[in-house]
């Protein structure tokens, strides 16, 4: 009876200690990753290969999604703005929403599900097939040869993809606003140029996407490296990459936006 009692109460804390242990392990993993990062830049071809797999192959989904989101923004925005007689500000609305918020956030969510999951699965399967172990025995550190290039490839790709998402979205907004709804193109562009601020709008968006890139890439390589070496283990890790990334992206977004808030 007493043993059951103890087991019950220590069981209550178990999810918490488990998460804490994992967090500690992830931190040590991140430090080791940073220590072995120079190789990813000295032999930049390794990283370029990962930029190809994580970044270039994500271009299509990012571009098409950006276009659609921009079009929807224009349709919805017009509907609201026209009630206040402010439909000429549509360009501003579309551009600000994309550059400050939707480009980095939706771009990162798409990146996590398209590239993050692939990175986790690849590393997890390499581990399960003892390929990482074989590499260690060949005196080639998998941290430097496999993990770091994938991490930095993701970190470099993310801001570029977010920028592409925003550009395609603005183009989608233009198509709907100017071509479909008949707004004046000169007005659409000049208002946008006059209002969107490089320092406060564009730069803040880029800063966000850098943070998201680091978060998603770290989660992806860590989950792959930490995955139990079995088919179920790898599939669970892949799911966790997408879910954890989504939560971390949205949580970080709240924090970063609060820091960037000027209140005017």
């Amino acid at each position, binding site marked *: 009876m007493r043993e059951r009692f103890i087991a019950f109460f220590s069981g209550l804390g178990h999810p918490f200690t488990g998460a804490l242990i994992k967090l500690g392990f992830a931190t040590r993993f991140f430090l080791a990753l940073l220590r072995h990062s120079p190789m990813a830049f000295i032999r930049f071809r390794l990283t370029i290969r990962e930029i190809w797999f994580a970044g270039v192959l994500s271009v299509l989904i990012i571009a098409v999604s950006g276009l659609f989101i921009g079009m929807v923004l224009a349709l919805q925005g017009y509907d609201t703005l026209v009630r206040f007689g402010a439909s000429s500000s549509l360009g501003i609305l579309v551009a600000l929403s994309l550059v400050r918020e939707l480009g980095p956030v939706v771009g990162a969510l798409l990146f996590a599900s398209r590239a993050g999951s692939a990175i986790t699965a690849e590393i997890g399967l*390499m581990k399960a*097939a*003892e*390929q990482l*172990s*074989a590499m*260690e*025995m*060949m*005196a*080639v*550190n998998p941290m430097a*040869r496999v993990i770091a290039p994938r991490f930095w490839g993701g970190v470099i790709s993310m801001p570029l993809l977010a920028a592409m998402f925003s550009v395609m979205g603005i183009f989608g907004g233009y198509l709907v606003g100017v071509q479909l709804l008949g707004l004046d193109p000169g007005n659409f562009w000049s208002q946008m140029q006059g209002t969107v601020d490089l320092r406060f709008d564009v730069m803040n968006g880029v800063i966000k996407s850098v943070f998201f890139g680091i978060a998603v890439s770290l989660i992806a390589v860590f989950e792959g490296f930490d995955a139990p070496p079995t088919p179920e283990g790898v599939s669970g890790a892949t799911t966790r990459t997408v879910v954890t990334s989504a939560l971390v992206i949205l949580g970080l977004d709240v924090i970063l936006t609060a820091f960037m808030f000027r209140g005017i």
Partner: protein
Amino acid sequence: MSTPLVQLDQVRFGYGDHDILSDLSLTVQRGQVVAIMGGSGSGKTTLLRLIGGQLRARAGRVLVDGADVGGMNETALYDMRRKLGMLFQFGALFTDLSVFDNVAFPLRERAKLPESIIRDLVLMKLHAVGLRGAANLMPFELSGGMARRVALARAIALDPMLMLYDEPFTGLDPISLATIGQLIRELNDALGAASIVVTHDVAESLSLVDYVYFMADGKVIAQGTPDEVRASDHPFVKQFINGEPDGPLPFHKPAAPYAQELGLEIVRA
């Protein structure tokens, strides 16, 4: 006599609570090919991982070329591994690289050689295992035995000072088996290296090696040269060499009584 290349001194190791290796000591001299034999699950692969520093002993010392593997930091460990070549039990080929690139991998990663020399070296190693014709295949296009021979070519690519072979003979036909056995011996003698061969293939290994260790219960329970082993009347050794099901080496992993587990027997308290 020079320091042995590998020395295990009363090594104790386990994954969970109970120990897989309890008190293991063995020595491998330069120039020797040593066979490790023991039942399935007796900890032979574990032993190789201890030597390679992927696992750390709970007690005792693992010395490679005189240096204690257990006390090494990461840098020292990777320097030590430069002297090693390991053939993994399941090959562990890089599935995203072709056969050629797999064998070239250690050469490209660790030796600064021009690509033309790498090409020649890779083709030489592949020729030695009889698979030069498979250079452009991908690993998934290979049979099990072919994959292990490619893995062997990759393991010997840098002519290591210490070779660890984890069951090099499984899945090979009798002709490849004899050739690979000869290759292991010749390579060892040509390089003045040392080799540890984990194997179940008694006939092949007794004709090949200089010394044999038998493992059971986490210890070395018998050892000797091939001639001593053949003449041995140690019950374990006799059982192993003749492949008898009954003897000191149980076929079954320890478990609850069979009939009881099938529910055929009423358990009385």
